[in-house]
């Protein structure tokens, strides 16, 4: 093995690009997502956290405050809050204020359900708070197909309220799919209309996304369209560095070209479980629990899983690829939830190795947990009735917005 492992140094280097430092992990994450609740008013088909029902073990207000205190001590300067739909937690606004008062800036993802004019005015009056509205279609038809009836109107109303209140630079967060990849210019126009910034992220087969990934993920030729669009418009659009697998088309996209899971990226879930990445909610990527294992810092710095993710990795079938340095085999979560080996190509490898890997023998891992509602709700997206896996036919699936992934704070940063 060792001869092939030349690409990952075995000890932390003292010089060279910063990205090599990131491979070995940092003392605290720089891209921390915290999902406050698994409860959600929506039931998006591709929800990364299979949200819907509140988990009775959800952290209490006091426990959440203690987490914020610890983040302040660790100098985690901001956190991406998501869910579920975080704003339906009754103490959401209190926790937002508490975080900001403790030097922990907040960006939260919402489907917009609680962003009435009063809340919009409150948000406009705060510093250090960013708001990200999830929208997965530039038209109601395309959006509601995956996010459920009425969800487009909810999001647009929220954007209108924010704009009317004078909130500057909201984010419109779009998960790029086969259905909406043709609407990129329209999304940009919408963002401009509301004085917002467009943020595009990659669809991963995580959570309920695993059930619909085959139908929703962009086709190979669409990946090229997306890459070209990002090359032409990338300067004014955020991506959370989530498309680095597209770097194998040629020129690298700006930002961090590295899977940050457990190294600079991490998730705290509603019950205090700590996972390597928001897109990796599965027992295999569970590092510990901040209540049971001595706090977040302890888990982040000492968990066996994270130590492993920060140690040299093999690159398997990607080893001989000339684009390895910019693509690095793509997204760990995308490989895992499609049943591909973690040290091989990404399922959407633009050199075509993903398709052949997908065509081979593979077993899609069973979900470790599911907070989807078990009774049909009126917000249930229609597509579910068309594409639901047979084993789910016993009940309808309800769930929430795709929340912030790794919005990487390094996006656009020259490394």
């Amino acid at each position, binding site marked *: 093995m060792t001869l092939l492992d030349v690409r990952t140094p075995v000890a932390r280097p003292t010089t060279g690009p910063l990205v090599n*430092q990131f491979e070995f992990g940092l003392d605290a994450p*720089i891209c921390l997502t915290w999902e406050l609740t698994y409860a959600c008013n929506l039931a998006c088909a591709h929800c990364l956290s299979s949200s819907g029902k509140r988990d009775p073990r959800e952290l209490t207000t006091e426990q959440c405050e203690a987490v914020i205190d610890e983040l302040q001590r660790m*100098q985690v*300067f*901001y956190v991406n809050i998501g869910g579920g739909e975080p704003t339906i937690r009754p103490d959401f606004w209190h926790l937002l204020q508490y975080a900001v008062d403790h030097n922990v800036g907040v960006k939260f993802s919402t489907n917009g359900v609680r962003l009435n004019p009063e809340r919009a005015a409150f948000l406009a009056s705060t510093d*250090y708070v960013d708001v990200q509205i999830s929208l997965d279609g530039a038209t109601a038809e395309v959006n509601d197909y995956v996010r459920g009836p009425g969800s487009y109107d909810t999001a647009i109303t929220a954007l209108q309220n924010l704009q009317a209140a004078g909130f500057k630079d909201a984010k419109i967060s779009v998960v790029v799919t086969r259905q909406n990849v043709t609407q990129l210019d329209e999304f940009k126009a919408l963002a401009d209309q509301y004085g917002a910034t467009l943020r595009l992220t990659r669809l991963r087969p995580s959570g309920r996304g695993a059930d619909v990934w085959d139908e929703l993920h962009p086709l190979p030729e669409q990946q090229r369209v997306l890459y070209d669009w990002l090359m032409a418009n990338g300067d004014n659009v955020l991506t959370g560095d989530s498309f680095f697998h597209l770097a194998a088309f040629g020129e690298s996209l700006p930002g961090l070209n590295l899977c940050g899971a457990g190294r600079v990226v991490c998730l705290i879930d509603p019950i205090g479980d700590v996972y390597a990445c928001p897109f990796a909610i599965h027992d295999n990527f569970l590092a510990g629990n901040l209540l049971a294992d001595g706090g977040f810092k302890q888990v982040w710095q000492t968990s066996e899983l994270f130590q492993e993710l920060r140690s040299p990795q093999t690159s398997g079938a990607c080893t001989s690829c000339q684009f390895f340095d910019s693509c690095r085999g793509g997204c760990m979560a995308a490989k895992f939830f499609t049943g591909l080996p973690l040290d091989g190509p990404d399922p959407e490898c633009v050199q075509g190795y993903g398709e052949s890997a997908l065509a081979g023998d593979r077993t899609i891992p069973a979900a470790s947990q599911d907070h989807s509602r078990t009774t049909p709700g009126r917000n249930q997206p229609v597509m579910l009735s068309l594409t639901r896996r047979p084993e789910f036919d016993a009940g309808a699936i309800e769930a929430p917005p795709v929340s912030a992934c790794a919005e990487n704070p390094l996006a656009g*940063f020259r490394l």
Partner: protein
Amino acid sequence: MLMADPMLAEAWTLSDSVALRPEPFGALAYHFGNRKLTFLKKQQLVDVVNALGESETVADALTRAGIPAAQWPAYVKALRGLAASDMILERNPS
């Protein structure tokens, strides 16, 4: 040798709005005002930045931090980068 950079004779300091988080390679600097994140890739650069406030001039800070004169131009360039994102500020600019 080229003309000495005028910055060497100026007085600078780390901005009050900036927090430095120690990291194995150096530090991560975060500006609470403009929310910019910057990486100080060397411990020596962290030492220089920390010495700025209590030094008469940038040259003094470099000396205090034990930076050999031959490397000063590289450090001045890094400091200019930090100045561009308001991480460090000039004291009493005339």
